[in-house]
């Protein structure tokens, strides 16, 4: 009864609560891959990850193993990581340079970076049998591929909105805000990917990213320790502690501060948290950045760019982006209770070195495998998942905080407080739409 089942998935999402099955049920998870990850636009990587011909990086789109490659003509391609001959993975390494061609380790079929056949060994066995131009003998390209300001996405469906329409104003802001901060309008990825396995559902991570109630509670220990050491550093050295200390101390801001932030919900589940750090102190680095942007764009535009204070953007369903800190975390579901995050950061082309050092400090303190921040999030995520996997003990997850108080204007939802659970409700509105549309 496919019809009955689709209605069922929709019923899991109510205005102010969701059923625990959306996090813990294998069948729901499989349906999410079909209806969301294998249909919508999913982030693959940044074009600067593959600067030279023959470069490649591998990643996941739902259950599919994908390759992003750079051809000899400079074009970037997104391919399924599968040999058309007998089906083996072509690239077994996470990244590398394949030279002129991918070469399958099994029978040495070779493919250009766009997936077309370059060479087949002992080809007399195929003379008069196959035509190498027949697409069934090429590596398969992603059904659709798109590039927004250097950020490469793929959709494994031939149908649906184009990338820019899908991202809309809400998600495009993530990439615009990174790139606009560069005097050259471009970001360049730092070729280091920290990978963390979360023992929890992919949605729990996205929800947590815009949950402004949890930081002062979950990260209490780290905020206190950082604030204490910030003072000790100053006392002992006479200098202000490095900015990283403030990043950590900020996790225990008073609730009034979290309350003053804004959350904004956009169509397709894209959601923003605005305000927060500001990141525009009067230090020499920021002043040099202002001067570089003024040279490039004029004072008015510089002020407009640096006044943009979008702290965090969820690009649904696959990314958490922190534009002013040049951080990006890609979400790769591996099962209902297992999620891989790929964590990256960026340089802004033409910006002062200190701006990169700020991003690097955040990457270290918040996003590295030794982070004192995500250690506590991961502990929560595991505990949440284990609680949600129970049969008894209650069926629903509450998203009631400030429910019914959101205002909607032209499809854009605003919360009444930064601590509202509107971001979760906005993401689930898209979830419900994606899981039930076309049925």
């Amino acid at each position, binding site marked *: 009864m496919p019809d009955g089942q689709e209605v069922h998935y929709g019923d899991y999402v109510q205005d102010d609560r969701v059923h625990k099955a959306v996090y813990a049920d294998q069948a729901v998870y499989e349906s999410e891959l079909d209806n969301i990850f294998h249909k919508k636009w999913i982030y693959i990587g940044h074009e600067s990850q593959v600067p030279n011909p023959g470069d490649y990086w591998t990643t996941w789109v739902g259950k599919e193993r994908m390759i992003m490659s750079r051809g000899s003509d400079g074009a970037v391609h997104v391919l399924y990581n599968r040999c058309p001959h007998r089906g083996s993975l072509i690239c077994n390494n*996470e990244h590398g340079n394949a030279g002129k061609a991918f070469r399958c380790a099994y029978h040495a079929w070779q493919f250009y970076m766009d997936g077309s056949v370059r060479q087949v060994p002992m080809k007399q066995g195929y003379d008069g049998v196959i035509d190498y131009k027949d697409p069934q003998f090429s590596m398969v390209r992603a059904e659709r591929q798109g590039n927004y300001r250097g950020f490469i996405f793929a959709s494994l469906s031939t149908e649906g909105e184009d990338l820019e329409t899908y991202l809309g104003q809400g998600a495009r802001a993530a990439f615009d805000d990174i790139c606009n901060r560069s005097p050259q309008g471009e970001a360049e990825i*730092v070729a*280091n990917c*920290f*990978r*963390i*396995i979360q*023992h929890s559902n992919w949605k729990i991570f996205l929800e947590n990213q815009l949950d402004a109630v949890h930081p002062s509670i*979950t990260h*209490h*220990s*780290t905020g*206190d*320790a*950082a604030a*204490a*050491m910030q003072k*000790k*550093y100053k006392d002992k050295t006479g200098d202000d*502690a490095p900015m990283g*200390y403030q990043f*950590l101390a900020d996790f225990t801001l008073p609730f009034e501060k979290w309350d003053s932030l804004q959350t904004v919900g956009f169509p397709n589940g894209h959601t923003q948290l605005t305000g927060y750090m500001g990141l525009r102190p009067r230090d020499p680095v920021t002043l040099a950045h202002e001067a570089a942007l003024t040279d490039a764009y004029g004072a008015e535009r510089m002020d407009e760019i640096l006044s943009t204070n979008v702290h965090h953007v969820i690009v649904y369903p696959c990314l958490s982006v922190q534009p002013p800190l040049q951080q990006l975390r890609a979400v790769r579901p591996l099962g209902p209770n297992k999620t*891989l995050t790929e964590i990256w*950061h960026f340089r802004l082309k033409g910006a002062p070195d200190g701006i990169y*050092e700020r991003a*690097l400090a955040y*990457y*270290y303190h918040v996003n*590295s*495998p*030794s*982070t*004192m921040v*995500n*250690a*506590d999030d*991961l*502990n*929560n995520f*595991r505990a949440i998942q284990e609680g949600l996997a129970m049969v008894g003990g209650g069926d629903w997850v509450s998203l009631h905080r400030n429910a019914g108080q959101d205002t909607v204007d032209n499809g854009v939802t605003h919360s009444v407080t930064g601590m509202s659970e509107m971001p979760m409700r906005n993401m689930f509105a898209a979830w419900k739409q994606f899981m039930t549309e076309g049925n």
Partner: protein
Amino acid sequence: MAAIFSVETQLAVERFLYRQAEIVDDREWDAWLALFAEDGKYWMPATADQEVADGQPNIFYEDLFLMEMRIKRVCHPYAHSQAPTQRLSRVVSNVIIESEDGATGDIVVRSKFHLVEYRLDDQRYFGGKYRHHLKQTDDGYRIQLQRVDIANVEGPFGYVLQTWL
């Protein structure tokens, strides 16, 4: 042929490394901080072939201030991901002194470690190599730089590393 160092030097260096292993396994935090020179650093690079720490991503790169912050954090009553804390047990071996400064007595020494970590019904296993730059002082060796290369450096981490390996 590699240089041969005195038995006394070999023994003193080995004892220092074994004692460090015991200190971090047993969470003797004051003793841990006292192992390092005032400007000493603990460094775990993000890739196997990384040559410098500054200005690049690292897994750990901490001076005494950041180490003390980490200690304050894991000892904080609300450090819920440290309740229960992890239990650590390591073996340090293959201690090979690379150089001894004839004038100062400073040492560069490499070694291997195997480490199990247990927390919440789950056991993890780490292996890798240490490379210590030890400064000779009136009060014995102090760590100028400890480089830690874990075998799974580029791999995905099941959960994060809350204290030093």
